[in-house]
């Protein structure tokens, strides 16, 4: 132990610490300053940035003993009294806060920058914030916020909200408003799961297989149990209820027992709870584990071969998904030209900034509370209850804030383990993954191989499309069948094609499981079809935009699954608006022709184009419902409750806006409470771009019903027809008098009506594949044009400009929408250029953030134009539909097509490999 004195945010602390305690740990665990976040623990991401004697350092990697005698400033020390630092204010107003987990690090780094350079240029900002990572991709808004803060500091200029040329139309809906939780996120007050602790809390950890396929021969926990400080060591035999979990098929053991099979390196075989995290770790090292290895299967195509090792006894095929429309044979016979190619996409890692954390806490009444940042809290409840073999009401799942999800927080992570350990010890147990464990364990994006064959008339009219898809769902099903189902139906693009045949195979392998990830199969499908469409355009000598326009789905079109699109098909408008914007930028030059960069003889630039579509909601026959509760509180404020998750996308804002709109209330009179299975009704999974639509409608109708009930009460009381009662600004107008909401509430209570109700919203029905009817109740559409620069010598590719239009039905929350659109674009750039989750023979190579490069501020294009098309749906709230996923999808094919236009090399796989591209360019040149 070393005694140190440090001054943190103006307050002196004298502490006895161990040498291996990092400053971030001391700030968080000893001083309770949980605003400083730990995301990677390896000095890669910048989330833990604090100032030491004014200089920004990465506190996860800075031994606290070194801070002896120094001044430490954390995010909590930035605001003076109650007044926010200009950076904090600017981050809120400019929308530079999404999930919020990286926000403290961004702001602290920016604060150091402004101290050094009061008037930074974009280049200064890029230099200082390089590798202070934001997975939501908020970089453009962060840059704007830093400029706005500098303006305020240097000149006293007010920080304004940005304005957009979309949205509007209502009092609240469509207006630019701040996130309700943004203030907490910029001050460090925001609470994520790991920020919570309880007296006597234990620390849990899991022993992982480390071998991708094998049989557990020996598992001896005696030595671990004997270690002082260890309170429980559990194996499969200790699970009282269902051993397996899984969202659709329960095939994933929470713990693999002796004699059972491990199917990927991340499989857990034992869990430990101990008084400290260090003891838990030591205990794991004392467990004797012997696994007899079995041969592994590591890709979906091999998995389908008859001689492949079997991952599950039932076979490696999770699902064969088929689509048939028209007559494929006749279609190709009638075609004048046929094109075919095979495309490959790798596994991708969500790399949400907040690693998984679960806390389970036994209550005196026999209940277990589980705190977890989950995208599906009700599903967690069922799965935890099944594992514990207790009724559902004995489990309460509560969701603190979530530092990003992108689909990666839908499956079980530590929830069941923590609950088992809490049950065994009778104490609260926290399980926190570090980045390494997170990367190893949770489901990834499916790696795919997609063959596309297109038959067309010479004028470019599509006649037939046949696709064959293989998806690697890894060791366990997760949402694999659904993901590959979406890949299937999106694999022929947003086009009118009379004859279609699709076969898709979702295959088990010994890779980490694959599940939901922004774009959900449709991402992979979009890459394949859009790359081939570009080749078609080139070889048929048709403008690539014209080819899409000609075949684009429009109102009245029949999709490949036989669904007639009756409304809200904004694809043509997206195409036109994107084309216009590109034309404006290129001033009449052909954007798709290669240009030499002036002064850079080895560099070429050109644009590329792609279109896409994405379903809103679960679809294909799955009931898609949400229930919302609304209550008029005694103080006159209104609280909206639903279990849906805020993962950075802005759902709290959207639901607050809708409530305020329907009740004519000021925004600050509406509270939104999410993710609590005891207190919030089931909003369904936060997936499939569905929450704004489904939860939005549930809240809209709940608010309307409350309003009617309030009017009815007043009508009775004042003996007036309800339509003569107005509601405005949080007050009712009756006979020229104002009655506050609080008074209306007490009137209702006096009459024995509790001003609280639940509305169960059921979305329009859909039907399974192969049956007539709608497969989905809405689709969003997008067109994307991207300009790249290719270095002919090194093969490096850089995105210069991006122009994209998305049909969202209605822009309900413009500031959040802009963030989603820009962030989705940046994630798409990462997928195309920098990211690849590499697994070799079942072993994860990319098990550190330093090996998995997500886009940084350097990857932001010089110019981004976000165009929003609002072709409303009849059913969605105010005409809205989904937007969370689509912005990423058209980006990789647009980039790959642009690379071809710039340098003549066609790629059929992402990410673009600079090495391979350079070799192709050299071969071409010589």
């Amino acid at each position: 132990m070393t005694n140190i004195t440090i001054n943190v945010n103006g307050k002196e602390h004298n502490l006895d610490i161990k040498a291996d305690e990092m400053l971030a740990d001391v700030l968080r665990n000893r001083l309770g300053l949980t605003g400083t976040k730990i995301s990677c623990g390896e000095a890669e991401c910048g989330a833990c940035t604090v100032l030491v004697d004014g200089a920004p350092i990465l506190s996860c990697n800075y031994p606290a003993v070194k801070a002896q005698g120094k001044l430490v400033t954390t995010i909590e020390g930035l605001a003076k009294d109650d007044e926010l630092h200009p950076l904090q204010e600017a981050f809120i107003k400019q929308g530079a806060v999404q999930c919020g987990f990286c926000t403290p690090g961004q702001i602290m780094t920016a604060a150091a920058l402004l101290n050094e350079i009061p008037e930074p240029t974009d280049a200064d900002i890029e230099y200082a914030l390089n590798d202070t990572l934001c997975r939501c991709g908020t970089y453009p808004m962060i840059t704007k916020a830093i400029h706005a803060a500098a303006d305020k500091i240097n000149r006293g200029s007010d920080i304004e909200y940005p304005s957009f040329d979309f949205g509007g139309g209502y009092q609240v809906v469509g207006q630019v408003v701040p996130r309700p939780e943004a203030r907490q996120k910029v001050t460090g007050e925001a609470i994520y799961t790991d920020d919570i602790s309880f007296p006597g809390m234990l620390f849990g950890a899991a022993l992982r297989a480390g071998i991708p396929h094998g049989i557990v021969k020996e598992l001896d926990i005696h030595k671990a149990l004997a270690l002082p400080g260890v309170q429980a060591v559990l194996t499969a035999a200790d699970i009282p209820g269902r051993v397996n979990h899984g969202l659709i098929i329960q095939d994933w053991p929470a713990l693999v027992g002796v004699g059972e099979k491990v199917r990927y390196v991340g499989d857990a075989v034992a869990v430990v709870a101990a008084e400290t995290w260090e003891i838990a770790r030591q205990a794991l090292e004392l467990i004797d584990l012997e696994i007899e290895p079995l041969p592994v299967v590591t890709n979906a195509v091999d998995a389908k071969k008859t001689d492949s090792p079997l991952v599950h006894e039932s076979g490696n095929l999770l699902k064969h998904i088929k689509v048939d429309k028209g007559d494929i044979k006749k279609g190709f016979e009638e075609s004048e030209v046929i094109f075919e190619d095979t495309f490959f996409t790798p596994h991708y890692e969500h790399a949400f900034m907040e690693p998984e954390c679960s806390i389970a806490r036994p209550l005196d009444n026999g209940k277990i509370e589980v705190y977890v940042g989950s995208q599906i809290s009700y599903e967690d409840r069922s799965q935890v209850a099944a594992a514990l073999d207790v009724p559902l009401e004995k489990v309460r799942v509560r969701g603190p804030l979530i530092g990003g999800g992108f689909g990666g927080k839908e499956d079980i992570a530590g929830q069941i383990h923590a609950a088992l350990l809490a049950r065994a010890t009778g104490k609260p147990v926290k399980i926190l993954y570090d980045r390494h464990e997170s990367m190893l364990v949770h489901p990834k994006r499916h790696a795919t191989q997609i063959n596309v064959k297109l038959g067309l008339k010479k004028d470019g009219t599509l006649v037939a499309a046949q696709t064959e898809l293989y998806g690697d769902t890894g060791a366990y099903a997760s949402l694999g069948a659904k993901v590959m189902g979406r890949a299937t139906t999106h694999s022929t693009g947003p086009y009118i094609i009379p004859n279609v045949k699709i076969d898709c195979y979702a295959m088990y392998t010994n890779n980490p499981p694959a599940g939901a990830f922004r774009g959900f199969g449709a991402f992979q499908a979009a890459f394949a079809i859009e790359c081939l469409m570009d080749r078609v355009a080139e070889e048929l000598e048709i403008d690539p935009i014209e080819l899409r326009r000609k075949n684009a789905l429009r109102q009245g079109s029949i999709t490949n699954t036989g669904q007639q699109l009756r409304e809200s098909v904004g694809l043509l408008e997206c195409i036109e608006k994107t084309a216009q914007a590109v034309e404006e930028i290129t001033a009449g030059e052909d954007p798709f022709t290669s240009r030499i960069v002036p002064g850079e003889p080895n560099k070429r630039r050109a644009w590329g184009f792609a279109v896409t579509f994405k379903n809103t909601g679960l679809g294909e026959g799955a009931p898609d419902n949400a229930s919302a509760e609304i209550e008029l509180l005694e103080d006159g404020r209104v609280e909206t409750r639903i279990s849906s998750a805020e993962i950075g996308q802005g759902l709290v804002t959207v639901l607050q806006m809708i409530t305020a709109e329907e009740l004519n209330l000021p925004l600050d009179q509406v509270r939104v409470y999410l993710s609590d299975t005891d207190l919030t009704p089931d909003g369904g999974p936060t997936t499939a771009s569905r929450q704004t639509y489904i939860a939005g409608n549930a809240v809209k109708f709940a608010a309307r019903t409350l309003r009617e009930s309030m009017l009815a009460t007043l009508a009775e009381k004042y003996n007036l027809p309800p339509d003569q009662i107005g509601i405005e600004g949080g007050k009712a107008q009756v006979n020229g008098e104002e009655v506050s909401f609080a008074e209306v509430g007490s009137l209702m209570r006096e009459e024995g009506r509790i001003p609280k109700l639940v509305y169960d919203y059921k979305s329009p029905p859909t039907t399974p594949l192969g049956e007539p009817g709608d497969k989905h109740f809405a689709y969003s559409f997008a067109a994307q044009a991207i300009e790249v620069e290719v270095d002919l010598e090194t093969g490096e590719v850089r995105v210069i400009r991006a122009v994209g239009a998305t049909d969202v039905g209605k822009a309900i929350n413009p500031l959040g929408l802009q963030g989603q659109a820009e962030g989705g674009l940046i994630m798409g750039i990462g997928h195309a250029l920098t990211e690849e989750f590499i697994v070799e023979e079942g072993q994860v190579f990319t098990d550190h953030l330093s090996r998995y490069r997500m886009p940084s501020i350097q990857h932001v294009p010089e110019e981004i134009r976000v165009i929003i098309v609002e072709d409303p749906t009849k059913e969605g709230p105010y005409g809205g539909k989904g937007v969370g996923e689509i912005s990423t999808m058209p980006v990789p094919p647009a980039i790959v097509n642009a690379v071809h236009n710039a340098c003549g090399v066609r790629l059929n796989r992402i990410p673009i490999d600079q090495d391979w591209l350079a070799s192709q360019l050299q071969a071409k040149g010589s």
Partner: protein
Amino acid sequence: MLARPGLPEFEYIRAGSSQDVFDLLKEKGADLKLMLGGTDLFVQMRDRAQGPGILLDVKGLPGMQEIDYRQRSGLTIGAAVTLNQLSTDLDLKEKYPVLCQAADTVGNYQLRNRATLGGNICNASPSADMAPAALVYEGEAVLESPRGERSLALEQFWLGPGSTALEGDEYLKAIHFPPPPPGARGSYLKLGRSRMGDLAIVGVAVLGYPDKSVPAGLRFRIGLNSTAPTPYRIPAVEEFLTREPLTEDLISLAGEMAMEISSPIEDVRATELYQKKMVRNLTVKVLKETWESLR
């Protein structure tokens, strides 16, 4: 397997004098690791790649954080000078600009507030970003031991990946650079991987200066990283470029020679052939730029 190995327990000692260092090195030897910024060290320790029981922080030793420039004897950079300190030092920017340029390419801004020149040199990573620049300024490692002080040219200091000529009783005190030749110009160019992290695939530093004693009238020093077990100079190419007045063709030939000499290892990030070609391309590019700036 432990998905989360975590930091092993260790003792942290801050050395107050060189005598402290000598005593502890003698007493604890194998279980002790000298530490400067510690930016790489803790990451490695978390992965259990390093597991010393004692970390001896030598950052606070006298002179370790000083930059000392004298016109006659040149530049001495204390081993614990941080890279951000280095890249903003005005003397350095004027006299040794390639060092400043290289410093800016390391990690990120926050990291460079702690990462040190000495640490970058002592890690002996083949891809050390500071190495090519340090080589073209003919840097020497200044080593201190109970036996006294000795200087070793960096080429002799690096023995292989992660391995140096540092004796068991020694520590790196400073890096010394002689005054650069009059009229010297140069630059460092780094090619990273768009995929997977920002380690250099190839880094090339060139320093050129007028020299009337050779037919070319110019001399070039060329330092490379990432493409051999240690960072290296290519004297054969440097000599070749002195033989006759420089032309673009000669520069191209020099690039080819550099490519031949380089010996990169193929890994998941880049093929051997690509790395070799990039040695050629980058060498040609930096040579041309440097030649331009000398004309």
